[in-house]
């Protein structure tokens, strides 16, 4: 019985093989199968339509991603180009500013500010060739920020008013009291030698006094702040808020010494005293 089943099965198999071979033999006569191919294609086009739609969607999605990548690459390229152009423009602008500053007399650029002596000194690109001498007052936007301590031919070192060794004779505009402004080495200024009883108040203006012949009077130094410190005797130290911005020293103005100070770098007797 089992053998019969197998024999029948093989017969079916061989018939299928023979039919396949016959179809294959008729394959060169394509027009014979054209109708059948068309019918199968038409019938299958309906169940295949979701696959076609999905395939198109995937193709569109792939194209979209490709376009996005192209756009992003283009954007990155443009951004890079823009940055380069901006840098070039900034460099040209900076060069123009530097050139303009170089042309102006009385203006200087800070060329060095060492972190270890941040609040003590800066170097500027003007020296004895430009009329700078020891004691020359150095300003920022019209406010005193320091004085020249040593001079080279093309550069000079400026001692900032925030330096601990800087002592600037000043006058309080509102009360006409004289005192001295000294730096604390940490960017702060203190007004010294004014009696406690003088009743100074916050906001009063401190300017250079006509005490030193090397320092022109009336240059604004800063304003008195509320903070005070007790000192020896009946004197009180008052914090002074500098009018110049010591943390933004890029360009400086300098006022050559006109009276008393020598041009060879030697301070006048009055300066030595200060």
């Amino acid at each position, binding site marked *: 019985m089992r053998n019969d089943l197998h024999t029948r099965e093989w017969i079916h*198999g061989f018939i299928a*093989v023979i039919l*396949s071979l016959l*179809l*294959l033999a*008729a*394959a060169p006569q394509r027009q014979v199968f054209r109708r059948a*191919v068309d019918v199968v294609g038409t019938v299958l086009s309906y169940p295949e339509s979701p696959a076609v739609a999905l*395939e198109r969607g995937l193709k569109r999605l792939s194209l979209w991603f490709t376009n996005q990548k192209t756009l992003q690459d283009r954007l990155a390229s443009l951004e890079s180009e823009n940055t380069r152009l901006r840098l070039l423009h900034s460099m040209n602008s900076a060069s123009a500013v530097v050139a303009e500053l170089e042309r102006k007399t009385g203006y200087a650029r800070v060329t060095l500010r060492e972190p270890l002596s941040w609040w003590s000194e800066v170097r500027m690109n003007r020296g004895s060739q430009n009329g700078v001498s020891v004691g020359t007052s150095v300003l920022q936007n019209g406010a005193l920020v320091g004085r020249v301590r040593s001079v080279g031919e093309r550069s000079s070192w400026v001692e900032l008013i925030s330096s601990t060794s800087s002592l600037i004779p000043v006058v309080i505009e509102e009360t006409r009291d004289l005192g001295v402004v000294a730096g604390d080495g940490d960017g702060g200024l203190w007004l010294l030698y004014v009696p406690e009883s003088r009743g100074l108040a916050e906001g009063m203006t401190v300017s250079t006094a006509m005490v030193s012949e090397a320092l022109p009077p009336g240059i604004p130094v800063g304003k008195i702040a509320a903070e005070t410190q007790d000192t020896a005797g009946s004197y009180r130290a008052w914090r002074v808020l500098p009018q110049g911005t010591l943390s933004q020293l890029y360009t400086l103005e300098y006022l050559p010494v006109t009276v008393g100070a020598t041009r060879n770098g030697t301070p006048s007797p009055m300066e030595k005293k200060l």
Partner: protein
Amino acid sequence: MIYGIVWYVQDFLWVLGAGKILIPEIFLILLVVLSMWKQEKGEERYWAAFIGGVLWDLRWLGFPGPTALIYVLTIMAVRWIWLMVPVSGRTVLLFGAILWCALLPVSLLRILLWGLRGGTVFMTYLLQQSYNLPIVLFACALYAWKLKNSNA
């Protein structure tokens, strides 16, 4: 019914691949697995292979014959080998080996009809077998599970 569904899935995947990707022969895998799994209904497998092959040829080749012939011959070979082996020797390994070998002729036919020649044939052949491998392993796992249940 199952033949129609699996044939349609293979056709669907083929359309989705847009003829650019070789799709695993899941219809033939089904026929081979069923031929070994259930020994009865041998005639049904042959005619399913023949009709499925003819339809495939009409749909994708434009003339009937090659796929139908390969399908039917493959099923005949599989059944001949499988029925020759005693029941105790029908292991998972043999099942997997026969299934794997059954896919080789039709894979080669597809690659040749795809128009590939020379060294690319071998590379594409290997790539296509890599697609078939997970399906073969899955079928082996199913067969092992069946063996385990029938022995229990």
